[in-house]
């Protein structure tokens, strides 16, 4: 199983647009405040389960959704760490 991905966006509207689209696609995900460790431009991010970065990038480009970065979220003993993958 893939580690969860945190996707960040340049602005709130892009994040909400992606949220609507991911809902349609029935992806397993949630809208979260962007983790402080990442501190991207926009306050909302999407935490997506069981997907890989390339699929997410493809989905976003299909709908003209601009994303900023994708991070792989790994948890070790309750401490989360975010590794940039895009």
């Amino acid at each position, binding site marked *: 199983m893939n580690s969860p991905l945190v996707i960040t966006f340049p602005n*709130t509207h892009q994040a*909400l647009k992606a*949220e609507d689209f991911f809902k349609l696609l029935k992806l397993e995900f*949630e*809208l*979260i*405040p962007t*983790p402080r460790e990442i501190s991207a431009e926009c*306050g*909302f991010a999407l935490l997506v389960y069981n997907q890989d970065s390339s699929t997410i990038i493809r989905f976003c480009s299909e709908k003209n959704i601009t994303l900023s970065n994708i991070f792989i979220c790994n948890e070790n003993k309750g401490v989360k760490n975010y590794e940039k993958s895009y």
Partner: protein
Amino acid sequence: MKKVIDARKMDCPKPVLLTKKALEAGGFSQLEILVDNKAARDNVISFLEKKESPASRIIDNDGDFTIYLDNVKPLPGNPQTDIEQLHPLSGKTVFISSESIGDGSEELGKKLMKAFTFSLNELQVKPQCLLFMNAGVKLCIEKADTLANLKKLAEYGTEILVCGTCLDYFGISNKLAVGKISNMYDIATHLLTDKGVIKI
């Protein structure tokens, strides 16, 4: 030398704080901690485990507990350790009377509320109590997108009280999925007596 801490009749997190203070001060090789409830017992035991000095044995004497620690290792003092780190509930109560946060855009407000409940779980400090009234009760019912976050908080020990009159008004009493049905008296008591109340 043996030291005894009598932490009976003390509320959390005092027994843990006394234990920590004694271990930092040192000067004894055995420690006995007396507590009179399970929550205090469990908090002290988990604190000792965290500090890699697990309890040697625990004696239950009719609801009073004695926690024994043989071969005490001195604990280095840490000025940054505070109550929040030791005890995850902050003592603060959050009063939520709407499905969304703030005015201006209901759509944004609902997303903010969801993100808020998510972040409460991410923070080390958890709210002591969440009070839900008016449309806020809709956050606690089946299929609410805040439900999973609130359930996690409840597991963590946050008390969740939901206004029964409000559930009834919206016709969703049978859909409550997290928290306890409560009434105006209980909620008003929390608002007036809790250590800190925040309305969002």
